């Protein structure tokens, strides 16, 4: 426990100390242009937020579902009794189901037109 505290304090302390060094010793000549948004060497133009193309966002829905399933499997494996063949069978079936779903809808997920 002490080791974790030492690690956190030394690590964060080193990171903050470097920023403080920059703050103390680096030359400073603030100007209005310098503090503008970086736009590849031109003046800022237009709003930052744009409308996103939703073409790939099916994957994000997918990842939230599948990751939860895999997480459950992880917890089950780590907390199960040493010999529980039924558990492993359940995991195998779960993964097979995931694989089948992904393969079945893979074409849809890749089809840009259906998501935009």
């Amino acid at each position: 426990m002490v080791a974790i505290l030492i690690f956190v304090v030394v690590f964060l302390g080193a990171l903050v100390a470097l920023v403080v060094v920059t703050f103390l010793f680096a030359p400073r000549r603030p100007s209005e242009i310098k503090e503008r948004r970086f736009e590849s060497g031109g003046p800022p133009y237009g709003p930052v937020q744009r409308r996103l193309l939703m073409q790939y966002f099916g994957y994000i829905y997918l990842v939230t579902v599948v990751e939860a399933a895999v997480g459950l499997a992880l917890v089950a494996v780590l907390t199960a009794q040493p010999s529980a063949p039924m558990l492993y069978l359940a995991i195998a079936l779960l993964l097979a189901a995931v694989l089948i779903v992904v393969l079945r809808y893979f074409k849809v997920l890749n089809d840009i037109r259906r998501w935009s």
Partner: protein
Amino acid sequence: MDLPFSGDLIAALVFPGVLGIFGFLVVAIWLERKLVARVQWRYGPLYVSKPLGGLLQPVADLLKLVFSELVLPRHTNRLFFAAAPILLFFAEGLPVVFIAAAPGVVMAPHPYGLAIAVVLVLLVAVLVVAMAWTEADKFTYVGAVREILLTAAYEVPLLLAALAMFILYGTADPYGVVEAQSNLWGAVLNPLAFVAYLVALLMATTRFPFEIPEAEPEVVLGPYTEYGSTLFIYAFGANYVKLYVLALLGSVLFLGGWLPAGGLAGVFITLVKMLVFVLPAMLVRAIYPRYRIDQALRIGWGKLLALSVAAVALSLVWRLLR
């Protein structure tokens, strides 16, 4: 154990801890630039310290960045702008708390240590997106979206590769995992999981074929565009810290950790085994072009997912045979 002084202090300050992280930052950047240069028939950084082959180049870069002006843009929340990369760098380094580098050299021995480390690695992508959001820049915005999508591509295979190994060993305790590999390495028992882990590592650290969020020709530096000075070291170096953590995790999970030695010699063996993950990750920069984001997603949810599911199936078979 038979260490001269307490192992967890060594873990906190020297090897998987602070000194290891910063040392890896310097050595990995030098190694990457040098290896890529040699593959391209160049010398790479050289004249800064000729007898050392330019090893001081990252040090010079860091010094220059530390002593250059710190610009906090006006349109951002300045406190968050300064805090985000520090938090990111710190969070990327946090999983080493739970990974053992040698018997006794671990900060927090925990029965589910490696599982916690994997989950911590996966949680960090949120901070990259938060950082990009704080910067409020067109390029960081696109970079953040790409980071989210790339995360969606690698998270499940990485988790599945870890799951395969946990099923194989029946534990997530670093000591238990290494002990289970005393006869055969995990990479030999389950090569599919090893390959899936390697590819997921390249994706997670945005190494070259998947260097999509910070694609230089398209979005200037992706989520790291607005940062200069010291904050740039943290924002950009966080990837190298992630590589360090994943290489350490991989050497424990797949290559038998500190075996066949113990004590301080085990630390060096772990270091050497980390090279198995680090060297290809450095070398791919000179080999591959960059995938498009849809290609990366297709790989993640196609071949890589199939590979990692097959790895889990292989582990199940091993487990039931035993």
